[in-house]
Each structure stands twice: as structure tokens, then as C-alpha cells.
């Protein structure tokens, strides 16, 4: 089976809803997962990722919606009738069975008599042949994880669901298993739906990422494309960091939208904006900005977007330096600068000009909380900093 490319089909979730006592854990979610892809469902804890997977696996009683694989509707099939297998968050290996029997479980239940060959093949794929007669408790976390993958994959499911499969592993093992899982997926060609709350994991592993928030999909696509052009404030803050400035659209010149905010005008390419009305948020990723000492401000290209501010924090981190810059309207902006400049860096208290190309600017709808999706610590820090500032003033 290794290397053979199987005929696989897209997984469709249509208007999927799951309510627990009137609270929607999954809310009218519609999603197509491309056949044979490594698909990551990324979202904060409690946003409904597990519930979505359990609906697909058939382990959760449905509230509404349909699930299809290709043209086949599997909505009403029971869990044991679905051509879908799961790698559980806690692995859920059968403690009373050895590794061989754990892996053989699905085959035996389907009445397949000769399990020896496929089980041994599968154990080889996950490099656990030597452990066949051990009990799960005698294996390390990483090995248990691979047994869980083998136990699911041996059934050649149309879709393999993985619920935070690496969550229980330490960082080093996690990196190793990420590569391992990618290799296995490449070899078997099955569609992998990988649930995680780790954005780095999602971005490095997946062909396609869907970012989930409060039971819905916020944005879906290639990880780089989402990072470069987030379409909601949540995504801009949740996937990496963003600097977001609230303003008002003033009109257009050619393909650009002009946005005025705090006395300056910013240029946002219309193609990079998802704003509907006049209220707009101008966004830019921290590493896209350049820091100039204010006296050198004239060196910034005319066409660039610019902000004046004062440096409140500098942290040097080897490959890059992170600046915190406070704007005249008391907003804290973050800039990452590659450590390629020769000479003095800006230091705390310096007046600086930040500038960036309009090509790196994105426009978001203004009627959103600018903190949506930001990690709580960041929001708290910012609030605490401005509280301190106002007390000192």
C-alpha cells in the first residue's frame, strides 16, 4: 500500500451545526477539504475543532447539516459505518490489547482474516515492528502516537482525522513527529484533517489551513496566502501579529483606496481590502515595516505609508530586533527588523518614522474589535502600559 496513490475524494461539510444545550459549538460551518490534502483546522481552544471532527467521525449526535465524501452522503451513517478514522487527542489505545492487536482491531471488526501482512506492513511504516507484542503503557508518548496513527491508517480510510495529535508531546518530539506525519501522509496519499491550536504547526505542516473562531471558519487557504492577506481582524491577530490602525475611507485613486487616520493618509490597494463601508482598518505585518530615526524621515519613499512615533521598547533577539513604538494617539505598534543594518539601532525614547509599502498593506472592515484574536497577554500588556502612561502624565 505504501507509495500507491489511492483514489480519494473531497470531504464536504455543509451547514454543519452542533449545539450543546442551545450553545452552538459548531455554527453553520461549510467547508470543502480537498482530496489528498494535508488540511489543518486551526483555532483557539474551545472554538469547536474537536466537535467538528467528532461530527465527521459520527461520534456526536447531529444537530443540523450534512457531511459528504465526494457525492456520497455519510450524514446518517453510524460511526462504525463511516469510511473515516480518527487519531484521538489522548490516543485512546486499547490498554488490554498489545500493539499488534490494537493495529489489527479495525481489520478484525470488518471480518478480514489475514491481518498479519497488513499489520506488519503498517508497523513498519510507523517504525514500530519491534514493539508489536508490547502493551500500550510500555511505550513512550511518541510511540503511542504512532500506534494511534497506524491503528487508524491501516483501514485505508477516505479521510484521517487527527485531533491535536502532537499536543501531549514535548517540543523536540513534536517537531520530529510533524515531519514524520508529513512523510506518512505523502506515502499513503489519504486526506489528513489535522486539528491544532498551534499556528506554527498548522503553517509548517498543512497545504491548506482553515482558521476557526467560535464555531465558524474565518478564512481558509494556503498558509502563506492567509498570512500575507488576512481577511478579518481575528485572522490578522491570531495568525502571527498585525498592526491595525482604525480610519475612514476617503475615496479612490486608480486601484487604491485612500484611508485617513489620525491626520495621515494611507494607501491600501483595493484588491487587498475586504472593507465594505467607509469605516476601515489599515493593517500591516510587523516585519514589513521599516524603522527610521525621525530626522532621517525624508529617506522614506514618498509612495510609502508612514507613521510617526516614539520607541518604548527594544528587544534584540539575534536574527531580528523587536521595537515597540507608541503613536501620538497612544497606540502601541510592533516592528520586527532584520539585524542587517550597520551602525546604531534606535533606542528607547527615540522619535522614529515607520514606513512600509502599500503592497504590504491590507484593509479590513472597520466594524470589528481590533483586538479580536489577539493573544490575551498582548491585549493586557497594552492596556496596562497605557494605564501606566496616563497615570504618569
Amino acid at each position, binding site marked *: 500500500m505504501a507509495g500507491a496513490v489511492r483514489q480519494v475524494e473531497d470531504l464536504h461539510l455543509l451547514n454543519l451545526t452542533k449545539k450543546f444545550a442551545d450553545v452552538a459549538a459548531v455554527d453553520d460551518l461549510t467547508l470543502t477539504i480537498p482530496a489528498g490534502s494535508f488540511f489543518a483546522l486551526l483555532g483557539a481552544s474551545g472554538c469547536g475543532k474537536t466537535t467538528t471532527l467528532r461530527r465527521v467521525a459520527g461520534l456526536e449526535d447531529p444537530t443540523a447539516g450534512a457531511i459528504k465524501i465526494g457525492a456520497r452522503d455519510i450524514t446518517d451513517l*453510524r460511526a*462504525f459505518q463511516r469510511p473515516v478514522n480518527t487519531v484521538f487527542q489522548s490516543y485512546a489505545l*486499547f490498554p*488490554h490489547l498489545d500493539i499488534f492487536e490494537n493495529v489489527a*482491531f479495525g481489520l478484525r*471488526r470488518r471480518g478480514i482474516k489475514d491481518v498479519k501482512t497488513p499489520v506488519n506492513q503498517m508497523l513498519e511504516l510507523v517504525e514500530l515492528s519491534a514493539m508489536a507484542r508490547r502493551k500500550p503503557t*510500555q511505550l513512550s508518548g511518541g510511540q503511542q502516537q504512532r500506534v494511534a496513527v497506524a491503528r*487508524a491508517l491501516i483501514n485505508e480510510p477516505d479521510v484521517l482525522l487527527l485531533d491535536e495529535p502532537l499536543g501531549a508531546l514535548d517540543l523536540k518530539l513534536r517537531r520530529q513527529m510533524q515531519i514524520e506525519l508529513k512523510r506518512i501522509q505523502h506515502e499513503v496519499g489519504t486526506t489528513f484533517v489535522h486539528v491544532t491550536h498551534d499556528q506554527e504547526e498548522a503553517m509548517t505542516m498543512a497545504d491548506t489551513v482553515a482558521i476557526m473562531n467560535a464555531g465558524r471558519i474565518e478564512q481558509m487557504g494556503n498558509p502563506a496566502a492567509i498570512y500575507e492577506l488576512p481577511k478579518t481582524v481575528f485572522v490578522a491577530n491570531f495568525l502571527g501579529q498585525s498592526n491595525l490602525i482604525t480610519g475612514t475611507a476617503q475615496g479612490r485613486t486608480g486601484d487604491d483606496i485612500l484611508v485617513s487616520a489620525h491626520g495621515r493618509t494611507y494607501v491600501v490597494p483595493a484588491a487587498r481590502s475586504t472593507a465594505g463601508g467607509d469605516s476601515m482598518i489599515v493593517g500591516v505585518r510587523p516585519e514589513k515595516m521599516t524603522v527610521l530615526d525621525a530626522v532621517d524621515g525624508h529617506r522614506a519613499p514618498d509612495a510609502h505609508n508612514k507613521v510617526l512615533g516614539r520607541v518604548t521598547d527594544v528587544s534584540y533577539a539575534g536574527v531580528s530586533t523587536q521595537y515597540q513604538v507608541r503613536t501620538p494617539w497612544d497606540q502601541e505598534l510592533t516592528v520586527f527588523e532584520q539585524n542587517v543594518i550597520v551602525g546604531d539601532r534606535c533606542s528607547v525614547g527615540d522619535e522614529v518614522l515607520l514606513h512600509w509599502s502599500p503592497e504590504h498593506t491590507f484593509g479590513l472592515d472597520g466594524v470589528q474589535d481590533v483586538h479580536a484574536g489577539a493573544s490575551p497577554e498582548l491585549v493586557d500588556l497594552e492596556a496596562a502600559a497605557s494605564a501606566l502612561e496616563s497615570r504618569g502624565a
Partner: protein
Amino acid sequence: MRFIRRNLLAVVAILVLIYLFIPIAVVAILSFNKPSGKFNISWTQFSTDAWTNLCGVPGVCSSFVTSIQIGIIATIVATALGTMIAFALVRYRFRGRSTTNLLIFLPMATPEVVLGSSLLALFLNLRFPLGQWTVVIAHIMFIISFVVVTVKARLQGLDPRLEEAARDLYANPRSTFRYVTLPLVAPGIAGAALLGFSLSFDDFIISYFNAGTLVTFPIFIWGAAQRGIPVQVNALATLVFVIALLIVLGSQVVNYRRRRKLVST
């Protein structure tokens, strides 16, 4: 002094063990005695009479067999019913569930004298003839509680994800029960059955009320005690103890072997 202070825990443990085992040792030793009078209390002379002639005293063996029969029937029925009740209580939400939970505890909390006499009153009112079946019914009734409590604890400790994993791996409800739930709960059920049997075999008070003319082993001993307990009783008691010990040791050895085998592969 230093030695005692350092090994205090071990010393206390050994003392407690001695305290626990002295009565058993006395019973076993006296089974090899040849008492001079009616009472087998003081050591007079070594003899294996009681062991070679286990059924030598009328009533000893028949009462022993009666108790074992009652124990087996009561245990099988109580284990089967109790296991089902435990599953119902843990797995299903139904009206009266918490009441049932409470009622299950009642037989354990009620003094045996009360339980025995109430049952007797019930059987007399129903004009149910006293004998083996009334004792069996009484035993089932109080063993069930222990079975339910034991199996319930095991079931509650069972990770629900294991059954979900089975369902996910093409096991229909029946195979899920057969290949995952049952094997995982089995040690709890076996433990409950062993406990149930020993409770039944051992019971005197409830049996005495409801036995009519039937003589169980504890009832026989109680009756014999008035006239002097025959040495055969010591021998049988020792036999029961040795069998129980062998069962425990046997399961330990099997476990140990299994673990050794696993580690060596």
C-alpha cells in the same frame, strides 16, 4: 534503638501482620491436634485424623457442600444482575436513577440482624417455605449491592474514548461491548464475584434467620460450638484459607509472568 527508629514502618507492618495471622495460624495448628476432651483448645498430641477423615463428623461435609452450593448460585445470579444494574446506572440517564443509586446502598448500611429478621417476616407472610432457596434469595439480595458498587467503580474509571475509538474502528455496539468494554470491566466483575462468594459463604446472621431446618457451614459451626467443635472444622477452615491463598498467589504469578514476558520481548 536506631535500628527500630529507622525501620519503624517495617516493624509496625510486621506486628500488624502477626496480629492478623495469629488466629489463622492457631486454627491451622489445632487442625493437627488430638484433643483430650470435647473442646479443641489446648495442644495435646499431633495427629492427622481430622485431615484423613475430613467428613468423619456427621453434618460437617454436607453443611460445607450446602454453603458452597448456595455461594455459587447466589454469586452467579447476583453478579449477573449487579453488573447489569451497574451498567444501567453509569450509562443511562433515566427517571429514578439517583433513587436507585441510594437504594443500592441500603442493604450494605442496614444491620444484618434487621435485614435477616425482616426477610424472615416477608417469607413467612408469603408462606414461602424456608430452606435453601430462601437463603439463596437473601444472599443474592445483599451481595448485589457489593457487586453494583464494585462494577460501577470500574465502569466509571473507564475512559469513554476507548469505546468511541472502537466505534470509530468499525466495531458495532455489540462488538464494542464484547471486545473493549467487557475485557476492560472484567477484572472488576471477577473481583465482585469473589467478594460476593466469600460474603455468602461466610454469612451467618441472615442465613440463620431464613434457613429453616437447612444447615449451612457457619450454622453448623455455631451449633457445634455449644457441644465442642470437632477438629474437622479446623481442617476445613484451613483448607478454605489455603485455597483462597492459592487463588491469590496464582493470579499474582500469572500477572508477574505476563509482565516478564512483555518486558523481555
